[in-house]
């Protein structure tokens, strides 16, 4: 038996989480270093996975399969395709930055504060989320996926509800109330989505008799498993609902601004750049493969919802007064693009969507983490409290600008490539949808540049005049992300090479062909 590489990528952070949590309270710093080392080791393992993965090989690679709960027809089955590998690598890449960026977020407050912040818990929870997210990217058993899809809500919930920004305009009491409101809203939305999916998971078992993604998809393809049209549609809706809450898609998005607004910036990145990707990933992997007919049936409605997400998210982002909520609404707009790319049912669209997930992860991480550094300096999330920061802290302002420009998909930065692919892919099948979606880009330019202008330019406000520039730790967080954004913007081929074959097989499951002679994805 070969070394269970995929299990190791999930087990390592899981064990790390337990050990980190067990570190005694006095050894706070040791716990942080431990968490960082574990996340780096996980990254190393993820790189090994990336190297061992052969884009032109089998569809699912590095597979593992063990019996688990035979009574439920559940197997412990792991395997990655190109899409899974890309997102696995993204997750493993972002976690060390998240940990480093949140280095002081869970330090105990000065004496006299009633707030309770166990440092070890913060880092242990981040690692726990990482383990669960990674295993959901790897699971090829629907039940196994479901278990971790649901279970990751619990550590996320404590991360949102238990740790907030140090300062809050309405004082600690109000902050605590708002935080727990946001955490509960997050949990209830996702739990309801998950429970509805549970009904569909059970239904799938009744229809198919097992949970193996490959077996079911194969049986669907060769016609040995026939689903009644209505059954398939209901099951599809059950799955899609859960993923649409997680992604989030309008009108199920309202938990995201609360959660991202109240959580600390690194946790907000964890939500939007890592956890939410499971939703869009699962649409590609489970909705399309298990229910191809229903996916085609639902495509028009989903495209409309995605369009609404794009425009609505961008419009609300323009109107935000709070930096973090602005990024949250921008993310909703971007998730609209991703979902549109997935359901455009073209290879460019889906490759673009996958690439978009990766790029959005990196660009949002860059923007949000810098925003977090900014907020921690001034102690306010309100845009109006800033002004002229670029004169005081030029490096901070510069990195913030690059993060912002990536968010608006400036050519030369990574998100441009994916957004372009998504739009091209959509346009070839649904021209009208593609045209309307383009307005989202215009609005993106508006909200990003207005944000930069109001916070960074203009006269220096008194409160920010003594603001220190980025520290070494913060630079270490931001610089690699920016380098990646530029690199993938100029040369996205490494990612597209991995992703493209997987997208082709997904499309062939849905039995959709690209409308015109195959266009090679931008190389």
């Amino acid at each position, binding site marked *: 038996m070969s070394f269970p590489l995929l299990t190791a990528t999930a087990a390592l952070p899981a064990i790390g989480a337990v050990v980190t949590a067990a570190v005694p309270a006095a050894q706070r710093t040791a716990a942080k270093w431990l968490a960082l080392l574990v996340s780096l080791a996980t990254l190393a393992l993820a790189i090994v996975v990336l190297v061992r993965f052969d884009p032109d090989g089998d569809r699912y690679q590095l597979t593992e399969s063990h019996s688990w709960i035979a009574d439920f027809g559940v197997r412990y089955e792991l395997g990655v395709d190109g899409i899974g590998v890309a997102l696995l690598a993204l997750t493993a890449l972002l976690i060390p930055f998240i940990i480093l960026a949140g280095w002081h977020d869970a330090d105990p407050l000065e004496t006299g504060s009633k707030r309770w912040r166990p440092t070890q818990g913060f880092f242990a929870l981040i690692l726990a989320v990482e383990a669960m997210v990674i295993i959901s990217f790897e699971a090829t058993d629907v039940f196994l996926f479901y278990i*971790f899809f649901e*279970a990751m*809500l619990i550590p996320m919930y404590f991360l949102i509800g238990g740790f907030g920004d140090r300062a809050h305009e309405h004082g600690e009491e109000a902050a605590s109330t708002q935080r727990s409101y946001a955490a509960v809203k997050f*949990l*209830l939305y996702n*739990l309801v989505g998950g*429970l509805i999916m*549970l009904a569909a998971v*059970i239904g799938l078992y009744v229809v198919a008799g097992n949970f193996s993604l490959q077996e079911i998809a194969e049986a669907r393809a060769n016609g040995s498993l026939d689903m009644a049209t209505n059954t398939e549609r209901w099951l599809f809706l059950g799955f899609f609902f859960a993923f649409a809450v997680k992604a989030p898609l309008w009108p199920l998005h309202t938990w995201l601004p609360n959660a991202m607004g109240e959580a600390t910036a690194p946790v907000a990145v964890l939500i939007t750049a890592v956890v939410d990707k499971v939703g869009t990933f699962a649409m590609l992997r489970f909705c399309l493969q298990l229910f191809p007919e229903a996916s085609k049936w639902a495509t028009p409605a989903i495209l409309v919802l995605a369009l609404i997400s794009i425009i609505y998210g961008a419009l609300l982002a323009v109107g935000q007064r709070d930096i973090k909520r602005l990024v949250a609404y921008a993310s909703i707009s971007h998730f609209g693009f991703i979902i549109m790319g997935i359901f455009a049912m073209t290879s460019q669209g889906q490759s673009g969507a996958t690439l978009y997930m990766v790029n959005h992860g990196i660009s949002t991480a860059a923007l949000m983490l810098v925003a977090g550094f900014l907020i921690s300096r001034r102690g306010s999330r309100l845009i109006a409290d800033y002004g002229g920061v670029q004169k005081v802290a030029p490096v901070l302002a510069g990195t913030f600008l690059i993060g912002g420009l990536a968010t608006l998909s400036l050519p030369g930065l990574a998100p441009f490539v994916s957004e372009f692919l998504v739009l091209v892919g959509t346009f070839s099948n649904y021209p009208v949808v593609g045209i309307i979606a383009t307005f989202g880009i215009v609005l993106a330019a508006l909200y990003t540049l207005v944000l930069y202008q109001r916070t960074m330019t203009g006269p220096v406000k008194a409160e920010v005049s003594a603001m220190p520039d980025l520290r070494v730790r913060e630079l270490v967080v931001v610089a690699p992300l920016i380098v990646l954004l530029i690199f993938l913007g100029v040369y996205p081929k490494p990612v597209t090479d991995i992703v493209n074959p997987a997208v082709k097989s997904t499309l062939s499951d849905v039995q959709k062909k690209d409308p015109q002679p195959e266009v090679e994805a931008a190389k």
Partner: protein
Amino acid sequence: MSATAVHSLWTTAADPISKIDAPKIEYGQLSPTLIVVGAAIIGVLVEAFVPRKQRYYVQVFLSAVALAAAFAAVVALAADGYATTKAGIAAMGAIAVDGPALFLQGTILLAGLVGLFTFAERRLDPEAHGNRVDSFAAQAASVPGSDSEKAAVKAGFTTTEVFPLLLFAVAGMLIFPAANDLLTLFVALEVFSLPLYLMCALARRKRLMSQEAAVKYFLLGAFASAFTLFGIALLYGYAGSVSYSAIAQVVDGTVTNVAPALADTMGNDALLLVGGAMIVMGLLFKVGAVPFHMWTPDVYQGAPTPVTGFMAAATKVAAFGALLRLLYVVLPGLRWDWRPVMWGVAIVTMLGGAIVAITQTDIKRLLAYSSIAHAGFILAGVIATTPDGVSSVLFYLAAYSFVTIGAFAVVTLVRDAGGEATHLSKWAGLGRRSPLVAAVFAVFLLAFAGIPLTSGFAGKFAVFKAAAEGGAAPLVVVGVISSAIAAFFYIRVIVLMFFSEPRPEGPTVAVPSPLTMTAIGVGVAVTLVLGVAPQYFLDLANQAGVFVR
């Protein structure tokens, strides 16, 4: 001349009186119950003859040994094949020894053992006049607040009678799911109900509330028993027998020889339907299904918390066992009649329990309503009428009982000056004062909510899967919706514990003796093991899923 010779002068020998057959009792197969009953009787003698100071130790030891020995007997019987190949009827047709019976008996015995640990806890309440005290009244007969009560407390009396009462209740519960005729069923029902009524009245603190709870439980329970008994009479009129298999044969129409005395009523479907409904009603009362649930919140709240935990777990196991046997063995021929009704009951139970629980402000009442919702989930499995339905219900019951006892054991730890602090507002910020206790309770709540990787999820998945396969997809949808509603109030408690500011005058968490720690530890361990690796126990439940007829 010999005596016989003289005798024979004026007598002649008649034929010997035909012997009355001695009943054939399979003592080995009945040993679990016999051990517990025997220990309970010895416990009563201990009360009479052992000096007061030593009673507690003797009773705890006796009860623990008896329950453990009975459990060992169950395991031995199962290992011997009585759950599968050798399954049969014992005690002249009164008791079935089969898979479901043994599985449920094992569950009840373990729940009883863990419950016993919480009964025996004596470190939580502050010492009264230098005597360690448990959760039970010093002297049940003394009027609350009276001088005689004060005297009893001062003298250091404790109600060690609870231990034999517990054993009697366990004994009744052991017979209940194994009863193979309606009279045995009724006797078992009374044998476990009466000790429970009594134990509910024995709280040391808030005695009036406890007594009120007991009276409510007793009155409503008596009604339910009367209904059951009436139903039994009607079914006897219908079938001419109280034996399960005989009734089942009449239901199926395979019996032709009609007893002359019953010729008028036998086979009268009205008797069958009304009688069957009344018996089922009695059982639904015991499991706390809507609309027979009214007693649950008051009794759960008023009873001493260890009793609540034991009762919530073990009664449910026993009553669902009896319900399963009744519906699957006696009335399967009638399932087209009872399934629609049970559908309705399951739906209102799931939704009713979950919705009303949202408004609760007392942790014990909250858990009571949550237990109602869980009864609804289990009913969904019962309705499946498939082998999977049986095994999923068995698994759910086993998983649920340990979570319940553990959760109530945690409730006993959170105390203020007035005893247990059960009002939810007092639990605010508990996670900051006692992270471990709050985390353990959170694990139990997550299991109740059915979050993956806990036993609650495995159990819920099993019953929903059985229901879906049994053609009850709408029930699954309702179940999922009420799970979502239920999740709300479990989460609310977690929010309260972890994200709210602790109150300055808030409760403290008492440090328990190893007894309660064991109870809680077992609860957590079972919750996690059944959540992560349920396969072994599912196999066990599967093998145990066949009733003997």
